[in-house]
């Protein structure tokens, strides 16, 4: 969701930048095109007009000098390739081209010149745009016309058009790229916040955002303050649990010690008193485990201390953790082999893991049927299988929460503390490992506790 939202925002900024660039480029191109066209056209018009009047003057001079043959006069005109000249003298047409003047010269141009005025006109023909100038030469009663082709100008304008379109396209792309980049930079702090939040929910409460100036600095500061408050609160809760447990230890010690005094005099007790004594012993034992578990959990808010880490073979640990009298009932699968079952860990905590997992299987899973230590790639896995009903998929995460008892498939007042599995999960976390549940082939649940293998 977060990722999509961010991309959406980023895409929107990119599109906005691209559209802006397109708009600016289009307006600039249109203006440029219009100015260029007007300018070029005016240039062409004035040069054509100049040329036509010079030529008309030349024709007039020759005719006044009495030259009767018009064709040679036309041939000696300073015409350019893209213009054609027509002269009407004494009702007779002469031209530098074989085309008929009536076809080439528009009717209205001829009419204006026939009325005795000079005229210039621009118009489209099937062959392209034309610019025609007509000049009456009254002195010799002649009409001079020159038709200019604007094809060259048209070509120039086409090239200009393509250049402008290409430039606009480049501008749009550049705008999009800029938008993408700018939005990336603008959104970077948001990305940082998201990353930090993910870190924090993964349990790394020390994560803080770098503080900076400006509006985003304010966000970072409040974010950091929020995390600090959260961290304090969690620490306070943990301290409370720890303090309570510490306070419970002294009375528990007295209880348990006095119980041993009573137990030494068991023979002097009546039957009901013995029964009461056994109940007391069982409950005090459970109470002690609970307090030990609570202390263990509150200790976890501190990470693993390097000084307690040692190279441990899980094989050996399992062999030492399972009481000898239980061994006949449990299938041991030490297929990893002692050399490939090495992990870096805290022996005491890992012993608790084995004990809690087998306890759990015994209490809730109808008994531990198999304990395996297997190697899987870079992981060494401890597997504890039970013969129970298995764990429903929906409960496979929740079962590792503190006091997660009362789950339907695995309920019952069992003498457990409700903290065993959550401790296993905590131990997995501080050892950079993981724990999860699978179905055991053939029924029952398989609890898998995996740690990164130590480098051999």
């Amino acid at each position, binding site marked *: 969701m977060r990722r999509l939202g961010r991309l959406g925002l980023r895409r929107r900024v990119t599109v906005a930048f691209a559209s802006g660039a397109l708009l600016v480029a289009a307006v600039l191109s249109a203006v440029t095109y219009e100015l260029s066209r007007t300018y070029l056209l005016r240039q062409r018009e004035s040069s054509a007009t100049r040329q036509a009047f010079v030529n008309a003057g030349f024709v007039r001079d020759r005719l006044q000098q009495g030259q009767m043959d018009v064709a040679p006069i036309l041939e000696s005109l300073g015409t350019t390739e893209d213009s054609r000249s027509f002269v009407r003298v004494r009702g007779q047409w002469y031209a530098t081209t074989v085309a008929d003047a009536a076809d080439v010269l528009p009717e209205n141009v001829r009419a204006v010149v026939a009325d005795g005025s000079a005229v210039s006109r621009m118009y489209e023909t099937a062959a392209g745009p034309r610019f025609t100038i007509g000049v009456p030469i009254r002195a010799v009663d002649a009409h001079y016309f020159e038709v200019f082709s604007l094809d060259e100008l048209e070509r120039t304008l086409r090239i200009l058009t393509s250049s402008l379109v290409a430039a606009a396209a480049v501008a749009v792309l550049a705008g999009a790229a800029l938008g993408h980049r700018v939005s990336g930079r603008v959104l970077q702090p948001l990305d940082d916040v998201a990353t930090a939040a993910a870190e924090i929910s993964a349990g790394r409460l020390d994560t803080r955002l770098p503080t900076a100036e400006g509006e985003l600095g304010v966000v970072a500061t409040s974010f950091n303050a929020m995390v600090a408050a959260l961290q304090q609160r969690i620490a306070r809760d943990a301290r409370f649990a720890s303090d309570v447990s*510490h306070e419970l*230890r*002294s*009375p*528990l*010690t*007295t209880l*348990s*010690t*006095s119980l*041993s*005094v009573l137990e*030494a005099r068991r023979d002097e007790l009546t039957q009901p008193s013995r029964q009461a004594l056994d109940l007391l012993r069982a409950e005090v034992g459970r109470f*002690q485990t609970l*307090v*030990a578990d609570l*202390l263990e959990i509150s*200790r976890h808010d501190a990470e693993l*201390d390097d000084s*307690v880490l*040692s*190279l441990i073979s899980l094989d*050996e*640990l399992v062999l*030492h953790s399972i009481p000898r009298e239980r061994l006949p009932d449990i299938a041991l699968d030490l297929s990893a082999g002692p050399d490939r079952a090495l992990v870096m860990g805290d*022996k*005491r905590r890992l*012993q608790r893991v084995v004990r809690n997992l087998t306890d759990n299987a015994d209490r809730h899973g109808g008994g531990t049927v198999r304990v395996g230590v297997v190697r899987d790639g870079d992981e060494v896995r401890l597997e504890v299988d039970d013969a129970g009903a298995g764990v429903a998929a929906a409960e496979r995460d929740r079962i590792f929460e503190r006091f997660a008892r009362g789950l339907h498939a695995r309920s019952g007042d069992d003498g457990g503390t409700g903290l065993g599995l959550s401790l296993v999960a905590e131990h997995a976390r501080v050892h950079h490992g993981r724990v999860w549940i699978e179905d055991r082939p053939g029924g029952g649940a398989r609890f898998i506790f995996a740690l990164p293998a130590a480098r051999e």
Partner: protein
Amino acid sequence: MALTLLVIEDDDRIRTSLSQAFQDEGYTTRSAATGEEALGLFERQPADVVLVDLMLPGIDGFECVRRLRQVSNTHIVVVSARADAFDVVAALEAGADDYVTKPFEVKEIAARIRALLRRARMADTRPASTAITGNLEVRADEGLVLVDGEPVHLTPTEFHLLTELTAVPGRVLSRETLLERVWGYGYFGDERLVDVHVRRLRTKIESDPANPAVILTVRGLGYKVQPS
């Protein structure tokens, strides 16, 4: 004759119940609520085993252990608030032989004490043997350690640790092995017991404890005594 045990604990209820429970275990018990009281008691009548709570009013458990150590070779077991704290190492460095954490079972402490005492009795029946390593001479049967011919004062636990190592000069003994042989712990014993005791031994027998020449650490494996 029954062994005597001194309980130093400020909590009345724990002190009373512990005294009673250890009497059931066959000890003659005495108890004190403060370190000062305990030291006075001990001076008049030493005990074979002392059980000290680390949290005491007045002079604390650490100081109490240190002062007892100055005057006696008795077996000292400290009762610590938590197992992972700096407390344990500090108490061992002050001279304690072993520790237990609250809440504990009397049977657990009784077993720890029995293991310590068993080692002490075994030393009495050790065959006459003398190990000499450099300037160090260990007369196991006499319970005597000489450095440069001068007797050095070691606690029974330190002495047992040293004799285990000098009995097999040049061979590496793992922490686990030493834990089992000296303290009677199995696989899950606290290896810090060995480390702290080796440290204490070194300050007594090495000419430069920071650069040991007699008891060498073999990284990742354990300790060995340099054969002469």
